[in-house]
């Protein structure tokens, strides 16, 4: 075992993880979630046109590979005269992608809140928007935490695709170190281990969040 390589490659990879992988995932997830809420609300709006647009969006996002989406934005758009840097390209691609999946999760979570909650909001004089914000979303949040955590954990790992559009994240560091040292097995296993630890931490966070949101819900 080449301990020196293991140690010398650890810091660049970890730093790529902390300065690129995690921020990339967080930013994309936050933006994606916002867009997902808009799409979910369009879907359940009862307006045929809005609903159709939302369905089409989800269908395209889920029906095409993330890598293709990333390449269309980074390598494809320049031929239309739109050139976007690696970082923004990655964030755009990942958030558009996350939105497609999270929209369905949020839609299901919103629909899982009993209709009586909407009616209770109505009878105390709330508009639909206020009911959504004060009554429905807090309850939908609890339901959507486990599936959204899944989405987020997938996203953290999917950010490795950004290495292919030259973002200096964890896996790009790993590739460079591996080709330089020719120790592919060791370096890629080390990269895998770092991803794994990241995801373990996130899973712990998920449990804590679920517990917090569970406080007031009868089980």
């Amino acid at each position: 075992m080449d301990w020196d390589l293991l140690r010398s490659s650890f810091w660049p990879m970890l730093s790529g993880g902390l300065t690129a992988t995690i921020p990339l995932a967080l930013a994309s997830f936050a933006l994606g979630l916002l867009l997902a809420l808009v799409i979910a609300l369009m879907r359940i709006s009862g307006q045929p046109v809005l609903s159709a647009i939302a369905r089409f969006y989800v269908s395209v996002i889920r029906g095409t590979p993330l890598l293709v989406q990333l390449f269309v934005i980074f390598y494809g758009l320049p031929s239309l005269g739109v050139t976007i840097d690696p970082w923004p390209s990655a964030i755009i691609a990942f958030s558009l992608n996350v939105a497609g999946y999270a929209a369905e999760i949020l839609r299901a979570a919103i629909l899982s809140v009993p209709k009586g909650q909407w009616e209770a909001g109505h009878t105390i004089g709330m508009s639909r928007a206020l009911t959504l914000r004060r009554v429905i979303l807090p309850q939908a949040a609890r339901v959507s935490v486990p599936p959204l955590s899944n989405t987020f954990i997938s996203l953290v790992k999917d950010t490795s695709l950004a290495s292919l559009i030259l973002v200096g994240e964890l896996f790009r560091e790993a590739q460079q170190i591996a080709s330089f040292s020719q120790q592919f097995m060791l370096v890629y296993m080390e990269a895998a281990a770092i991803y794994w630890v990241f995801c373990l931490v996130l899973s712990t966070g998920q449990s804590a969040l679920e517990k917090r949101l569970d406080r007031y819900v009868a089980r």
Partner: protein
Amino acid sequence: MSPADPLLRATALQKSFGGNQVLKSIDLRIDSGQVVALVGPSGSGKTTVLRCLNGLETPDGGTVAFRGGPAIDFGPKVSKKDALALRDRSAMVFQTYNLFPHMTVLENVIEGPVKVQKRPRREAIADAERLLARVGLADKRDDHPFNLSGGQQQRVGIVRALALQPDLLLFDEPTSALDPELVGEVLTVIKELAEEKWTMVIVTHELAFAREVADEVVFMDGGVVVEHGHPDQVLRAPHHERTRRFVDRLLNPF
């Protein structure tokens, strides 16, 4: 309008769901301080009447007028704003309580006054505490609904409606989801409200309660009002065969 006018007058209310005409033509008049019990077999449309009055359903036709407000004509051209204006005159108490599970008892009660009516929070809390004390739940203010019994939850539901200070309280089978031993505590609260001259419409299957508390009983069947009048008359000496059969069935279920 003068004070002698009814608090609410509904005429020719109609409502269909799909091809099923649930309300054929309902006329209703409710005076201030009056307690009206709406009784009838299930599927007779009584809950739908209540929901129409609160704007939870939009009637297909007919008019609803509250004293001091416009007569809202539910034709094909009724505006959403008009239909919503109705809602602010009344508050509904639901069969299954529909409390907000993520809020404490107090938060449930002040949500409407603070977030919708924009009353000062401190004032809303003081009111809520007074109302909760009145229904015997002062010590539950910081609990969440799932920690309460059904009877306690329904009393919170009533307080949530009262806190809005509506002109009209609507009760949709308020004790139907309760265990039998918890029915009494909720009916007691409603009876006290009647004594305080709250105007109420109560959909109920508790005929003994209706006879005791209501000033008027309205018997509905098949989407129409079959008869209405003083509880003693409608429930003890009904004019109509349909009413008689219904009362008999409830009094002698076996």
